[in-house]
């Protein structure tokens, strides 16, 4: 006998509590909430989750999350295609978009170099970044990676690979919350630091 009176309830609780930030108690509360609600609500929820997993694609240019092969940002002709902002993950794209201070394109690396976590440059979308530099008409690259030693090291690694005479390489102000502290990032500060970026000189 389990602590729940139904094996179906127990399964739902187990699945929900595997999500980050959800404990068994919360999972139980959510499950009971769904049971109290109209049946169609739960169907809509499970359908949207299944579709999310089945249909979502990653943009083949910038690796942002997308509904089509090329995302809405990359296919928007009004965006400045000379300007490319390199970020750690998709949440950073969302944070920068919220500031409405940036009108260029993105490149999502999918992490930063971190040997302790087993992440080496080949695990990141760096090769495709180099390819983009060759094909596209990019005049400035903004390195907007976290202000940690790993973020810094990744910026430096990319800088060494892409630097050339005709390319401007810049970075956002040090100490601006990006990456893990993103949820607390203040839009005005982040927006300002994207507009007032400084040359990246490994200093």
């Amino acid at each position, binding site marked *: 006998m389990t602590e729940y009176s139904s094996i179906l309830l127990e399964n739902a609780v187990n699945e929900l509590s595997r999500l980050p930030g959800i404990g068994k108690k919360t999972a139980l509360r959510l499950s009971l909430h769904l049971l109290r609600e109209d049946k169609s609500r739960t169907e809509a929820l499970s359908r949207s989750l299944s579709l999310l997993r089945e249909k979502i694609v990653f943009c083949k240019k910038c690796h942002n999350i997308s509904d089509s092969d090329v995302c809405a940002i990359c296919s928007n002709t009004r965006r400045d295609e000379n300007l490319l902002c390199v970020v750690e993950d998709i949440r950073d794209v969302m944070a920068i978009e919220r500031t409405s201070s940036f009108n260029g394109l993105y490149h999502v690396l999918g992490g930063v170099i971190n*040997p302790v976590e087993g992440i080496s440059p080949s695990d990141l979308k760096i090769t495709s970044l180099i390819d983009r530099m060759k094909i596209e008409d990019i005049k400035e690259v903004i390195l907007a990676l976290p202000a940690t030693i790993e973020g810094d090291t990744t910026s*430096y690694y990319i800088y060494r690979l892409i630097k050339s005479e005709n390319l401007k390489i810049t970075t956002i102000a040090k100490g601006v919350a990006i990456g893990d502290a993103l949820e607390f990032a203040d839009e005005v500060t982040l927006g300002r630091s994207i507009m007032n970026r400084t040359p990246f000189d490994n200093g």
Partner: protein
Amino acid sequence: MFLQQLKLTDFKNCPSTELDFSEKINCFIGNNGAGKTNLLDAIYYLSFCKSYFNNIDQQNIRHGCDFFSVHGHYRRNGDTDLVSCIQKRNHKKSFRFNKKEYDRLAEHIGKIPLVMISPYDRDLINEGSEVRRRFIDGMISQSDPIYLDELLKYNKALLQRNTLLRQFAESGRFDSSLIELWDEQLHKAGTILHEKRHSFLKTFIPIFGDYYNIVSGSSEEVDIVYESGLFDHPLINALKSGIDKDRQLRYTTSGIHKDDLQLMINGFPLKKFGSQGQQKSFVIAIKLAQFEYTRNIMGFKPILLFDDIFDKLDDQRVGQLINLVSQDSFGQVFITDTQKQRIGRLFDATTIDHRIFEVQSGMVKLTIE
């Protein structure tokens, strides 16, 4: 600032006690194991949110009891601040300033500066270089937030580089460009840390030398020599030229994590050539210099604790120390000793404000006021 009143409940072997202290010198007298040191540890708790001796808070609850509490009333410029530490069994430690719970214990550190001088200070002489590095790191961080920041960066970069060396050794492949990334980071942070250590010691060593002469009553020549590979080569060069060795050993063999302090007396290493008494005076002088350094940067006098320091020191040196800390440049002092008569004799001869407490199996009573 001084500790006016201390209230303990079921802390270590002490069931319950309430003590009012002198603004100047307080002595706890009792046999070994009576609980004198526990009283100092309670005072230490209120400054550093933890025990000097036992990092497991739960184990400081008196045997068979449900919680301990330590409350201190501190007087500063006519105001009283109440600092409380409460540890219930199987609960999180609760730490309060004027009855308000701290979100982070780190916010409290530094509010009530304190220097503890104890027999464990001998570790500075006898243990590995890590103990000496931790000592100066702690002191510089107190006044220089950039130092702590760079130190954390350096340690992270070091961990990453060592991990990479190990991964390369295990997989049999090697990519020098990946190692060089971390070399850059180590070089940047390491150079800053090296310069800050160097300039800190330049200020610290003369203060230390003066105290050594006072404590030892002699004019022996003492020195603390800062040993660092960064005096010879920029770190980036050392990392590059040492890469073959590093690959073989699978860790980083050069950098400020290899720095050491060589403690010297009359031009020879203290550990090998210093007598027991010289060694003792040496570490006491280091801690007194720490007191003065902290006082200078904080702008007020830390509380000073002497734990069983007078053991093995002759009466004359003990007298000298008491005279020293009686001076105005020192603030409130707590002392433990086993010899009731000696302490009585020393204080009979002075006019300095003091209180003597007798400690017997966790019970404390005031004997002289």
